[in-house]
């Protein structure tokens, strides 16, 4: 039996945008165990929310996570509306859906780029982020900011989408289709991507159910859940779209689910623009009475859950937030062990982790054990791709 060694990743590591610490316990090249240590991003938002006015909280929860900065306010507003028992105007529902789907596009493209970077395909990174820029331009057109849109409030939306913006949105979405089709083809046909992602980091269906996995992570393992369809918030039930599921559970399935979901999102946005009615954009809410409410939405990473409780004053007494990554990151505990270190980088990233959500809320010295340096890990991953590239290159000759 090979000697057991420890490979630390993080908290500050080129692999990660955010600080978190993984301890890989390896035998030779194989990972046998994984320990996750998080909390470097914990900001105590649940406690802060208890000190803020109901209206201020939409801005606070928006800053839980910069990537899904519409999902958290959305879930919070739905919780507030559940507490009050009110309906929002029809137009507000459509505006909410448009913003939410644009956000899904931007988030999935961002992840696709980072996944490409981890395999050592920086071309995918550059292409995906180039395709993402027009989506950010749409956000700027609609809300005035590239990130943090501040569009939602309890009872409706804060600002309207002007009619002049419709053709711009349509044009951008239309231009996005060929790019997305290209990504889909690349993932399905490229032999190197196939070899790197197929059969790697498999999340079994029963593990997914036990961990309570949500979103694309669950759907790639054959768990057919999507809050947009199941909970029927906004007007998703009146549109025609489908929930993408795959049964393999590996990274390839997760890639494909996300890319196909983007195509569905484009179609949802187009349908929304066709059907959006004229009229009011908010129902006036004067105060929040005593009670409790639950709101949940399908964020790009999965179900985002908010629970609020009011005692009739102008602040909540309890605001519980459960972000999708909180359950998805935990699935790494079963998906990473059993594969090689060079696959670990990709597998850890495959759930589209978002630690600022999870927590909201290679400077380690371990004596007597050989430690791989942080940057070695990405190098290993890139080297593996190069090796595979060479094999396929030789075949063609």
């Amino acid at each position, binding site marked *: 039996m090979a000697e057991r060694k420890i490979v630390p990743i993080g908290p*500050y590591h080129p692999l990660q945008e955010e600080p978190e610490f993984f301890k890989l316990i390896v035998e030779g090249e194989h990972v046998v165990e994984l320990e996750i240590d998080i909390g470097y991003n914990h900001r105590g938002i649940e406690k802060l929310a208890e000190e803020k006015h109901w209206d201020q909280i939409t801005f606070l929860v928006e*800053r839980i996570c910069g990537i899904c900065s519409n999902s958290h306010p959305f879930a919070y507003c739905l919780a507030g509306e559940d507490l009050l028992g009110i309906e929002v105007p029809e137009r507000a529902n459509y505006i909410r859906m448009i913003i939410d789907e644009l956000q899904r596009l931007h988030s999935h493209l961002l992840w696709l780029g980072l996944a490409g970077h981890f395999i050592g395909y920086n071309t995918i990174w550059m292409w995906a982020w180039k395709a993402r820029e027009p989506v950010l331009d749409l956000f700027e057109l609609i809300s005035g900011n590239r990130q943090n849109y501040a569009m939602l409030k309890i009872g409706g939306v804060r600002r309207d989408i002007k009619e002049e913006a419709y053709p711009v949105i349509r044009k951008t979405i239309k231009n996005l289709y060929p790019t997305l089709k290209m990504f889909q083809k690349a993932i399905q046909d490229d032999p190197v991507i196939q070899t790197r992602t197929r059969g790697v980091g498999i999340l079994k269906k029963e593990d997914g159910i036990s961990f309570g996995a949500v979103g694309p992570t669950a759907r790639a393992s054959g768990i057919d859940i999507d809050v947009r369809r199941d909970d029927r918030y906004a007007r998703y039930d009146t549109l025609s779209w489908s929930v993408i599921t795959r049964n393999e559970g590996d990274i390839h399935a997760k890639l494909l689910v996300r890319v196909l979901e983007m195509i569905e999102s484009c179609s949802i946005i187009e349908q929304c623009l066709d059907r959006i009615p004229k009229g009011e954009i908010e129902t006036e809410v004067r105060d929040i009475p005593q009670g409790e409410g639950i709101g949940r939405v399908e964020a790009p990473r999965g179900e985002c859950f908010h629970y609020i409780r009011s005692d009739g004053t102008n602040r909540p007494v309890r605001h519980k937030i459960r972000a999708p990554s909180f359950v998805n990151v935990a699935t790494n505990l079963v998906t990473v062990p059993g594969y090689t270190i060079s696959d670990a980088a990709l597998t850890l990233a495959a759930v589209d982790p978002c630690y*600022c959500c999870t927590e909201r809320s290679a400077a380690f010295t371990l004596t007597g054990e050989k430690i791989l340096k942080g940057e070695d890990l990405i190098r290993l991953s890139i080297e593996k791709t190069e090796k595979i590239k060479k094999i396929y290159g030789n075949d063609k000759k």
Partner: protein
Amino acid sequence: MGIKEKILTKSLWVFHASVGSCNNCDIEILDCLTPRFDVERLGIQLVGSIRHADVILVTGAMNKKALKRFKKVCGQAPKPCFIVAVGICPCSMHMFKGSYSMQSPLDEIMPVDLYIPGCPPRPEAIIAGLAKLINKVNK
């Protein structure tokens, strides 16, 4: 300014450390590297290891748990090294002020060379900030 600092400004290698951010500033920093903004044409490159860094971009309000690790990481940086606070959080704590898990603004922990406020700052603002840093050093 000494000759060491002047040499640095020819090509800034930046290291990015998030100490409790919401990800927005982090993705805008990465966005600077992608085709639309492409800072590599200006010689600015994101490096994986702090040992290669000329500039440390700090995003997010300082978290108590991250603080110890961050200080350790900063100790490994070659000197001289510039510290840049990206986003309003490291500048003034933003809306996270007064939280039990937050420390203090960055400049109370270590000297800061440049502030780039915004929530998040646009990529243009980040590039303009780095240009100002270079000008300041060259003066």
